[in-house]
């Protein structure tokens, strides 16, 4: 273990990653709305994000990226760049010291492109220079000799085109054997008799565009050589240890020689699960013997991370006249882009939650994710479930219309409850209050329509002043959805926490907690401190900065698992520390590893559970949306949102409301405006000028009810809360838009053209 490297932090008083820095504010216990420890520094601008890091003697790194979606590399000419002023290193794939490829789950992505680029923005070469401008200029002098190849851009055709990865990186991992070219994973869930006939059936084809996490803090970090051949990397990330385990082999180092330290994270939403600058910065730093900082520009950020999978979904729902679902059939096509990332899990989620939180005895769900030369896709909040929820909820509304049953009644009639069997064959146990969230959301009363005339800001089109009431129709929509909490399908998931108990100056008991759980803005720092205070019964608890150097893996801040896992681990470690101190009477330092109940893989042929459950736990939510739509211009104003969410137990209610509001805003974005647009695989809107995210005028007041039905397996009965709002909100907004316009609106984000019927 090396001593932490002293860092000078420009213009900031806080330590790097002050979210996870040492805190000792008054914080409260489990169940209390303790104010965020990083709230004030983030609001005043004092918080040090990863892009604020600095070190003495630091160089700036820059990444040369492909302007082609698909091309062969015939040669890379770096000699001119090497001689440019201030330049200390120019590196290509030849300079990767160890493994040439890495990947979150499958090592299919080159550290630097070798003989081929597979997507627009793929990293090809690196430069380190004294000044970022010198690095950029040198990068511009690197000439890559490309031979453009036909890009694979239509996911429907990808399975018939030349394979982008002839070695099939994801084959042989226990998935359905699908020999078609470019299949990352295909999956079938066959349950009951999928041919069972109902009295009525509805059908639809739904499409989801590419959403981006659009975090405000671009990818950035600082790599500092330790002088002994190893490296310290300070970076905004979601899972420190899995970063380390990918970085070390590529640098030909032992894992302990690579220490990842969490720097201040400016938003993540899944987009920081894959590596960004970690290996690149470390290569430059080890090569030059100097600290190297890399900060992506905005355009580079849009091209440099994975996005939400775009999807095409065909669905057929069959029901009895009384409204009971008889059978659901769905075919889901996902475009994974150039590399596998977390696509295999996205396929599984899309399948597992395809029917929604409803009892379906007969189902056939087929899902395929393909490689292509479109922007790479991976983790984003609610993955797999967001896409299918949009489809299954549109189907439920269609069924309600055909059967002439109230849409809320139809959902209640079919709501899953503990004891029911999911299409994967898994029996629901524990807490799963679907009917309760539906009832509670449905019972929330939206405000009466506002009188006209109104300030245009309170009309569709907002500040654009496009209507004074002309063309405006009001619609109320409803949706319910669910997804898994924690990792699934047999993944051996764990979280470590370390607790040091010692006597303070006046002899009073104090504690220092170590946990590598990434604070990505979700508030896990507070959770950890609240749990420690609750368990130890003391106020004086500090949380050390998250680092691979002094505690085991916490797993990923994703899959709505971090609060569950961190709370479980800290609780375990605190109890062990107290016990040991009781026993020994001296200062103690204990580390414990928490595991959630085990899961098993799904059968590759049938998608049915094998040795036991495939999923640990589920959380559901329901949402009612009131929208006003200018049906002549196709513009929307959301008026009000009411939601009820299954949270198990709110560890920090204020933070839960924050997650609901933020997650809903992200779903509104997907419903109305957020889309990465491409032409021939090239991104055409890689900026906040043209990739629009909701403003305060686009997000209405959100009334949220927390449904606390304790999860027996969750620490304190809690469930994760980050994803369900994103899963349901897109579907709920679309339901409201359909009610206002009478149109099918089968694609998100909805374009004004579709609303006006062009």
């Amino acid at each position, binding site marked *: 273990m090396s001593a932490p490297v002293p860092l000078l932090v420009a213009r900031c008083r806080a330590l790097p990653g002050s979210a996870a820095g040492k805190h000792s504010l008054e914080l409260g216990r489990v169940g209390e709305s303790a104010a965020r420890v990083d709230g004030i520094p983030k609001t005043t601008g004092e918080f040090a994000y990863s892009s604020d890091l600095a070190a003495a003697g630091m160089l700036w790194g820059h990444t040369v990226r492909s302007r082609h979606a698909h091309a062969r590399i015939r040669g890379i000419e770096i000699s001119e760049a090497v001689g440019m002023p201030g330049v200390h290193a120019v590196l290509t794939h030849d300079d990767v010291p160890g493994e040439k490829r890495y990947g979150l789950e499958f090592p299919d992505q080159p550290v630097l492109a070798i003989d081929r680029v597979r997507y627009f923005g793929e990293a090809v070469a690196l430069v380190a220079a004294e000044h970022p401008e010198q690095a*950029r200029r040198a990068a511009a002098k690197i000439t890559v000799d490309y031979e453009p190849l036909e890009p694979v851009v239509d996911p429907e055709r990808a399975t018939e085109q030349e394979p982008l990865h002839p070695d099939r990186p994801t084959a042989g991992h226990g998935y359905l054997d699908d020999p078609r070219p470019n299949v990352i994973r295909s999956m079938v869930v066959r349950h009951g008799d999928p041919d069972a006939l109902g009295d009525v059936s509805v059908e639809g084809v739904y499409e989801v565009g590419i959403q981006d996490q659009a975090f405000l803090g671009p990818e950035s970090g600082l790599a500092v050589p330790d002088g002994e051949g190893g490296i310290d990397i300070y970076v905004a990330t979601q899972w420190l240890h899995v970063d380390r385990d990918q970085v070390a082999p590529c640098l030909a180092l032992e894992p302990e020689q690579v220490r990842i330290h969490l720097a201040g994270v400016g938003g993540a939403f899944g987009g920081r699960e894959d590596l960004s600058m970690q290996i690149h910065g470390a290569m430059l730093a080890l090569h030059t013997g100097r600290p190297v900082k890399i900060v992506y*520009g*905005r*355009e580079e950020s849009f091209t440099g991370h994975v996005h939400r999978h775009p999807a095409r979904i065909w669905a057929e729902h069959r029901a009895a006249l009384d409204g009971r679902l008889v059978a659901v059939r769905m075919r889901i096509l996902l475009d994974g882009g150039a590399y596998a990332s977390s696509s295999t899990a996205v396929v599984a989620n899309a399948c597992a939650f395809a029917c929604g939180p409803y009892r379906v005895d007969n189902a056939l769900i087929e899902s395929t994710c393909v490689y292509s030369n479109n922007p790479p896709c991976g983790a984003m909040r609610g993955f797999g479930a967001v896409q299918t929820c949009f489809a299954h909820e549109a189907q439920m509304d269609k069924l309600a219309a055909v059967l002439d049953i109230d849409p809320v009644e139809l959902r209640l009639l079919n709501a899953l409850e503990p004891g029911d069997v999911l299409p994967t064959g898994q029996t629901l146990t524990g807490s799963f209050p679907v009917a309760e969230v539906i009832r509670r959301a449905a019972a929330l009363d939206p405000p009466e329509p506002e009188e006209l005339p109104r300030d245009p*800001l309170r009309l*569709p*089109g*907002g*500040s*654009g*002043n*496009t*209507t*004074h009431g*002309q*063309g405006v129709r009001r619609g109320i929509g409803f949706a319910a959805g669910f997804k898994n909490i924690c990792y699934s399908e047999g993944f051996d998931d764990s979280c470590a926490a370390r607790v040091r108990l010692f006597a303070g100056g006046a002899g009073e008991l104090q504690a220092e907690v170590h946990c590598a759980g990434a604070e990505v803005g979700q508030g896990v720092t507070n959770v950890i401190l609240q749990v420690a205070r609750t368990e130890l019964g003391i106020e004086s608890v500090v949380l050390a900065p998250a680092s691979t150097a002094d505690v085991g893996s916490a797993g990923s801040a994703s899959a709505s698992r971090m609060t569950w896992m961190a709370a479980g681990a800290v609780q375990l470690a605190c109890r062990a520390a107290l016990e040991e101190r009781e026993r020994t009477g001296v200062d103690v330092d204990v580390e414990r590893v928490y595991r959630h109940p085990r899961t098993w893989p799904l059968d590759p042929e049938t998608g049915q559970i094998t040795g036991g459950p495939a999923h640990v736990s589920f959380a559901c939510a329901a949402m009612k949306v009131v929208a006003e739509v200018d049906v*002549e*211009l*196709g*513009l929307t*104003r959301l008026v009000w949102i009411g939601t009820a969410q299954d949270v198990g137990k709110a560890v920090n209610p204020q933070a839960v409301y924050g997650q609901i509001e933020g997650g809903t805003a992200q779903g509104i974005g997907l419903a*109305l*405006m957020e889309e990465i*647009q491409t032409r021939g695989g090239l991104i*055409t*809107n890689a*900026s906040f*000028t*043209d990739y*629009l995210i*909701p*403003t*305060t*005028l*686009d997000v209405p007041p959100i009334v949220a009810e927390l449904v606390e039905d304790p999860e027996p397996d969750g620490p304190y009965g809690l469930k994760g809360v980050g994803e369900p709002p994103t899963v349901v909100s897109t579907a709920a907004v679309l339901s409201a838009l359909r009610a206002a316009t009478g149109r099918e609106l089968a694609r998100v984000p909805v*374009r*004004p*053209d579709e609303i*006006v019927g*062009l």
Partner: protein
Amino acid sequence: MDVLTPRSLDEALRLKTEHPDAVPIAGGTDLMVALNFDRERPGVILNLGEVPELRGWSRDDGLLRIGAGLTYAEAMAEPLRSLLPALAEASRTVGSPQIRNRGTLGGNLGTASPAGDSLPPLLVEDAEVEVASLGGSRRIALHEFLVGPKQNALAPEELIVAVLVRPSGAPQTFMKVGPRNAMVIAVCSLAVAVDRERGELRAAFGSAGPVPLLVIAPLAEADGFPALVASAASPIDDVRGTAAYRRHALRVLAVRGLERCLAA
């Protein structure tokens, strides 16, 4: 990169003659974006922020002389707001409060984007642009000043000094379509005025052709006016919207604009 900061208009014009390649900066809300995105790397920047002659506005015998440095926030304030209501409405649609506090009319003219929101209301009011160099100043009708997408009639040694406009007093409005309800670049926009004195319907659109364009019809031809506006446009498909939608939306906006102005 050198930054020159003149303290008077004369000094600014002298510096612009000495450095014809110098890029003026007013609020910087366009230029700084271009710098940050590495699209421009000017050798010399001419900072107009300290030139008093470009600030504020004045009135002489009914003619308004609006300094190039007038911000959107200033255009939204009385009495300018009542004198040029469509310009004030257009200014309200621009960006966010921060952008409206920094961004200027001169900068909007300098950028000459087809989406420049101050341009349609100024076209409707027959505005002229006063430009100057050491050799003297000249006035250019706005529709002649706007030469093409992001191209204007400014010569290298010239600066934009003011916008000249004689307010018509006609009922007028401005509308801008964008897929979110604030902070959006126009998918298309329309300024409309019903000028009973001149017996004219006047409309100017943005983001629906290479330059914002003025369309005029006799007062009596209100019924066909929306179709006329839509057919005068030459929109394209781009990341922000389709040509078909833009044409459709212009027609809707023209109907609504006329309705508002005729009711006034």
